[in-house]
């Protein structure tokens, strides 16, 4: 099976399982992104058709929500918190460090494809700011000192 075919099968299975839910579009987009890491633009026509929407409407929804992405992410996505509580605990300095360590800005992926970097506005981890999330793991009291060791461990988990 070609990659495109495999993708289409995955998307069709997800659509079949979820399309009858009221307000099915977000659950479908989540399921696609969970499985594929992003919502490929090639999947939009099938989703639109199943839900009786125009492609533009589906694209509009994908682009409205920060979480959905239409390009493949790196192997791991680092969500770094930019919000106030983390700022109060040195978040801005950490942000500079993270960007220079990875050599990328927000919404970019490292050249080796290992990490993507995304901003996030609060992880509810404000009692141990600054915070970040990699995959489903949340890290508190992140600093320029421990950032490298955290991402090295995260690489091992992946």
């Amino acid at each position, binding site marked *: 099976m070609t990659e495109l075919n495999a993708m289409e099968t995955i998307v069709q299975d997800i659509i079949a399982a979820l399309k009858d839910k009221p307000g099915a*579009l977000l659950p479908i987009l989540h399921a696609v992104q969970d499985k594929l890491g992003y919502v490929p633009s090639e999947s939009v026509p099938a989703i639109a058709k199943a839900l009786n929407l125009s492609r533009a409407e589906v694209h509009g929804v994908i682009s409205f929500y920060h979480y959905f992405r239409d390009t493949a992410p790196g192997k791991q996505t680092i*969500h770094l918190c930019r919000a106030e*509580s983390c700022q*109060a605990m040195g978040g801005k300095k950490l942000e500079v460090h993270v960007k220079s360590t990875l050599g990328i800005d927000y919404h970019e992926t490292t050249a080796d494809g290992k990490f993507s970097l995304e901003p996030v*506005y609060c992880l509810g981890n*404000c*009692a*141990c700011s600054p915070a970040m999330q990699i995959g*489903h793991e*949340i890290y508190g009291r992140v600093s320029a000192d421990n950032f490298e060791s955290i991402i090295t461990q995260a690489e091992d988990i992946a």
Partner: protein
Amino acid sequence: MSITIYVPCDSTAVSIGADRVAKAIYQEAQKRNITIQLIRNGSRGLYWLEPMVEVLTAEGRKAYGPVQVSDVTSLFDANFVNGGEHPLYLGLTEEIEYLKKQQRLTFARIGITDPISLEDYISHEGYQGLSNALKLSQADIVKAVTDSGLRGRGGAAFPTGIKWNTVLNTPSEQKYIICNADEGDSGTFSDRMVMESDPFVLIEGMTIAGIAVGATQGYIYLRVEYPHAHKALNAAIEKAYASGYLGDNIQGSGKTFNLEVRLGAGAYVCGEETSLMESLEGKRGLVRFKPPLPAISGLFGKPTVVNNVISLASVPIILDKGGDYYRDFGMGRSRGTLPLQLAGNLKHTGLVEVAFGMTLRELLYDFGGGSATGRPIKAVQVGGPLGSYLPESQFDTPLDYEAFAANWTVLGHGGVVAFDDTANMAELARYNMEFCAAESCGKCTPCRIGSTRGYEVMDEIIAGHALDKNIPLLRDLCNTLLNGSLCALGGMTPYPVLSALNHFPKDFGVDDQANTAV
């Protein structure tokens, strides 16, 4: 006696090593041939002491913290499994001042029980509220909530009973209960704690709401940033179905209530209730015009209760102990308790549930212990990214909706973020404008365009350019936002921005108070 040890599974505790500590304790016990029962409880919310390990002793639960993996051997050497002395020993958990001084009503079980054990929930007074509600008429359930004086904890502080009454009295084949679990405000985590540490209390609250207003379907709209809460909620919902606490014939009453978790996708504005409903319907989260009120025409055009997690999680104790019991806490028109969240630059960050009425200063110093860095606290943002910054001169404001409103400040969802004197308030004001621009749903021009103009002007101000023109321009923009926005994202971004300017003009390069006053 068998040995019971508790290590929290709360995501903040885990973010600083609780899983590793749990594993180390388990392995060390095996190595020493000590049989232990390891329970992953929720967090008590004393986060500066996390990972906080507890052991059950004849006198009660004893606490040790903050525990790192490297402490585990010495804890065993000190016989901590039987409550032995150790440098990390904190005494009986319930006697820790921070906890002892609180009035935990909504958080009564949190940190005590195993979050997804229904047996634990029931043996700690769980489902007594529902049991009472099933004996009452719908109107009497609503009356109990009205009598309690409970006001929405999501931010707007609208009386919950009045909202429920509208939905009850709007006839419809189908009605909905929505739990707003979008918790987007920086500095807040009380919703997260409830969902991770006591998910059944939210399920019970929503079930009571459904029965009260005649809604058979509930949705929890959960932010995608909370994967741990997602897992806990789904596990608890599954157990509630299996034991007849959700589904078609709840505890043999003939009443139906179904519940499903839906994930958001990283849009702050989707915490606004009408944007949330658009999102649940599968659309972009554009804010709707009101009227119609969601209580009359909400999700899919049907009468809908939208309540915050804490509002709904406070319902079981109200139905259990009575509206009067809850109302007897608090001051003025702020009744009951508020779970405050101490965050940012504070020594003792954590969850503090107290009756309304304590001053912000008491909260910051008696509970918070002052700044984490040891420097003076310069400003405190209360109520999330749309809340004002309070300078030291306002620290004596009592925690009460009306007292805060009188200062042009808001209590909101109870988030408290402290900044020390290294914070630059102009930089923060710029951030607030940038946040508004990034999160605007785009429906109104002042919010969409004005916020972008706002941070451009802030860049000019920070660079010290033409302050005599740019400061009035910033004020103009704020006035436009205040008056021309459909929802509070645009409408309240001026709160942090103008409070920063008015209280900390020096950070904006202006000295003269007279020039900056509103």
